[in-house]
């Protein structure tokens, strides 16, 4: 391969577009000819340097905003509108088209670009201020008590006796009555069930005993009669058996 042909095919070689035979001839020439060898390495070096260096990357959002603003100015937003929508933007209430117009304005307007950050920091400062509550000035409590109760010693002012007794009763009854209501109700129910079956007609203790004795007698009679029935039955069964055997 001649040097002129080497130069002609250089780009194809670098692109890997040469036929295998030509490719081999090209490589052999590069090995033999120092001038062409240098040329090849020089071109390779330049190419890699070109790849490494890129155009300074523009801010994507800013570039996009500039393109849209120069082609479609109606998609822009004035500084006044921008400020008007700031809280809605921060709250996340801006509908999509407005949102994009707002963000484009934020990206390209030098006057407005810092404003959202400042507002956020200022709101943050307000929140810090919330936690910094000042203590009540000395003497204010006393002034308020004096103005309302007529004295600074609040303990002195007591509710009337009746109201206090009422409150005392409530405090006494509350823990007893309310939580144990179910237990009390059950006890009452049991008492009613027991008493209604045993209590005497006249309600006296003597009458209650008599009623109990009557109940006991009745139970005994019932038991005895059923026992008697059982005996009769077994006697009858025994007779039947005898009859079968006899037959």
């Amino acid at each position: 391969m001649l040097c002129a042909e080497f130069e002609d095919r250089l780009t194809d070689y670098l692109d890997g577009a040469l036929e295998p035979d030509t490719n081999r001839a090209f490589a052999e020439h590069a090995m033999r000819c120092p001038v062409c060898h240098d040329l090849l390495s020089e071109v390779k070096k330049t190419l890699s340097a070109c790849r490494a260096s890129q155009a300074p990357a523009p801010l994507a959002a800013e570039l996009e905003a500039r393109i849209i603003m120069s082609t479609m100015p109606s998609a822009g937003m004035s500084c006044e509108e921008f400020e008007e929508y700031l809280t809605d933007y921060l709250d996340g209430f801006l509908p999509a088209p407005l949102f994009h117009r707002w963000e484009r304005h934020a990206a390209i307007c030098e006057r407005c670009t810092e404003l959202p950050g400042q507002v956020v920091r200022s709101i943050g400062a307000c929140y810090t201020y919330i936690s910094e509550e000042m203590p009540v000035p000395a003497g204010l409590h006393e002034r308020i008590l004096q103005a309302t109760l007529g004295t600074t010693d609040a303990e002195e002012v007591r509710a009337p006796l009746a109201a206090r007794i009422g409150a005392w009763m409530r405090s006494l009854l509350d823990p007893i009555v309310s939580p144990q209501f179910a237990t009390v109700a059950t006890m009452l129910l049991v008492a009613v069930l027991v008493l209604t079956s045993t209590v005497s007609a006249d309600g006296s203790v003597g009458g209650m005993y008599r009623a109990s004795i009557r109940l006991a007698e009745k139970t005994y009679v019932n038991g005895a009669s059923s026992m008697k029935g059982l005996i009769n039955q077994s006697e009858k069964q025994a007779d039947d058996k005898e009859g079968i055997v006899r037959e």
Partner: protein
Amino acid sequence: MAVGDGAELVRRCRAGDGAAWEEIVSSYSRRIYNLAYRFTSRADAAEDLTQEVFIRVYRSLEQYDSKQGDLQNWLMRLARNLIIDDYRRRQRTPHDSQADDLEDHTYHLRSGAGSVQNDMERRELGVQVQAGIDKLSPDLRTCVILRDIEELSYQEIVDLLGIPEGTVKSRINRGRIELAKILRRMRVVAMTNT
């Protein structure tokens, strides 16, 4: 304070129990005093206003109904109404300007990433925020305090001030922007993140 406790305290107050009233005063005076201070920016005026609020609350105890919300909500609603009324009244009458021109001052606020502000810096920041809020016009100031310091919802502010929601929103928005610009001029809020 639990809801039940509040209702019980009010019941005891109505019966004439001074200790119960003292408990209400000491539970809420700090919050009400701070709210009053945010509107008045003066300790003596805030004290007077706090006292006025409690006198009014004391006289209105009969109107409190525990079914309509807990004591704190009722009390703070009453306090806000009175404090805002007072503020509006004062705005209509001429008064000497209280705050000196803070724009001449330069504050140094560390904006370094991750630096923990110590108590003194926080306290200083509180003073600066109050100074910034003082510079807002009355309408904007009211809305910013209620939204960003008292943390009320838009609807609560609408109910409290009796103005349309759109107006409330735009005042909050305008107030925040103005406050941010004022704090920037005072160099409280750092110019950039760097």
